[in-house]
């Protein structure tokens, strides 16, 4: 009994190390008082100070937040409607259609969106990035909402109608409040995906609309500076907080 358990513990410890050592390195070096990511010299907040006085970086952060918020809100509304439709019509091809962009390779989505924006003469900038992010976030919200819907007793809506509520009232007073945890979970997922996204954003961003991941990439092209470590650490922290809150809201939608 004892031996297989020990082996299991060791194996999982190794896997976790593999997963988290690279992240830990970034965090550690973001506090390192040296230009080189080579050896530990001493603790410093210097790189964070530089980061917060770098106007380009701050602009990118602002862009990222605005885009992620807008993408989360938009895909929240659209994904909620899509999720309800998926539940109500129960067509296999319908869910494939909504979830398609989720499974599609990012590079493909990026290229095809770029072509589409060119075709319809939509200027590249924040708007185009938001639209692009919404396109692959709807599916996640729809999934979370659909899961809530299928856990919901259909007779609740009939009861509401029966007791005198119009279709709109029964949606507003019964369906929406019951779906809300699913919608919020989906929107947080969308926010996380949007703020992290690089590939799709790379194709759909215009001048002056660079997001944090794009900004980091352009800095790394020269060298992995400690500022990059610092901004990466902050981004990591934000994502971590979101994931924690998200898992509180609906553990099952995160697992799927």
């Amino acid at each position, binding site marked *: 009994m004892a031996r297989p358990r020990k082996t299991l513990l060791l194996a999982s410890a190794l896997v976790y190390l593999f997963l988290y050592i690279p992240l830990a390195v970034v965090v550690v070096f973001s506090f390192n008082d040296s230009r080189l990511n080579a050896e530990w010299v001493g603790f410093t907040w210097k790189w964070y100070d530089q980061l917060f006085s770098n106007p380009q970086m701050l602009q990118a952060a602002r862009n990222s937040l605005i885009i992620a918020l807008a993408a989360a809100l938009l895909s929240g509304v659209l994904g909620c409607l899509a999720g309800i439709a998926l539940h109500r019509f129960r067509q296999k091809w319908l869910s494939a259609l909504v979830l398609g962009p989720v499974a599609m390779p990012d590079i493909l989505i990026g290229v095809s969106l770029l072509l589409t924006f060119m075709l319809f003469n939509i200027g590249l900038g924040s708007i185009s990035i938001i639209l692009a992010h919404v396109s692959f976030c709807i599916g996640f919200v729809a999934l979370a909402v659909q899961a809530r819907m299928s856990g919901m*007793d259909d*007779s*609740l809506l*009939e*009861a*509401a*109608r*029966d*007791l*005198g*509520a*119009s279709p709109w*009232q029964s949606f507003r*007073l*019964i369906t929406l*409040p*019951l779906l809300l945890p699913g919608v919020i979970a989906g929107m947080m997922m969308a926010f996380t995906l949007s703020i992290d996204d690089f590939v799709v954003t790379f194709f759909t961003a215009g001048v002056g609309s660079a997001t944090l991941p794009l900004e980091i990439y352009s800095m790394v092209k020269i060298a992995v500076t400690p500022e990059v470590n610092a901004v990466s650490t902050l981004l990591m922290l934000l994502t971590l907080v979101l994931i924690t809150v998200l898992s509180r809201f609906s553990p099952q939608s995160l697992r799927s």
Partner: protein
Amino acid sequence: MLEIIDVSRRYGEYLALRDVNLRVHAGEFFTLLGPSGCGKTTLLRSIAGFDHPDSGDILLDGKSLLHLPPEKRPVHTVFQSYALFPHMTVADNIAFPLRMAKLDKTEIARRVEEVLEDVRLPDKARHYPQALSGGQRQRIAIARALVNRPRLLLLDEPLSALDAKLREQMQIELINLQKDIGITFVYVTHDQGEALALSHRIAVMNQGEISQIDEPAQLYNCPGNRFVADFIGQCNILDGTVIESHSDRVDVELDGLGRISLSAHIPANLHSGERCALTLRPEKIRLAKQLEANDAELHFRGQVHDTLYMGDVTIYIVELGEGVKVEALLANSAPGRARLFDPGDTVEIAWHADAGHLVR
């Protein structure tokens, strides 16, 4: 007050309702009884407005309901799953129909409090439905459906989720509630015992059609056809052929039992040679080692084939010869008597010539 006129409903090839006609009187406890798939729930949903008949009409107080959406019908439903809103407290659940009817706040609070008293759960107002027991949820669901005084209350198998003990208690509560408030109930169930215990009248349904509408005792004692006889309670159904029909009795050749003369409940216009069946309740059959002869009774001798000990009674399945089996029962009222006869024993059985009911 409620009239169902020639209502039919078809789902693709499947005929859920076929020319259903019935009338429910004001203040009545009316039950739709039948096996699953007989159309009783479809009919109930049509009255509530969740399903639409292909043809026919549904009138309430002489006015057609069919063009009204569910929320505009003065009819409320108690759902099988109770359908209490999980994100609202008990008080908010009960207040829901009142809010929809746009009553003012103080009136709503007063009515909610009043109805919570009626169902004896005044201290549960702030609780959420998940924190209540099955029986309590049931009462809240009924309170919510009754709070703004519908013309008609529809109940869709409301007791099926409760255990046997609680169900009996709720049955008594339902009967008393209905008596007190005087609202017409239309009750759907597949449980014949429940239907007999609760209803003023019962419509037995089978395959989308109404088999018989009658009072419980009439339905039990004088089933109109084989289906009703078989569905309601235990019943022996003995097939036979009419030999001759007289005004006060009919001579019948029962398969495997020979010719007998029956004197009660004879359907009109029986023809000689027509197939028929004698429906006979087990409790109407006498069973003993030896029975004294009696001219008013029909006597048979048989062999005990099987026994079923039920606690209060024991059921004896007696073979009367040529594969004809009859169920009879004896109460186990004498102390220490678990069983009077064993399989293989020879016994005599008898029943009154007017004990059964002849059906086509």
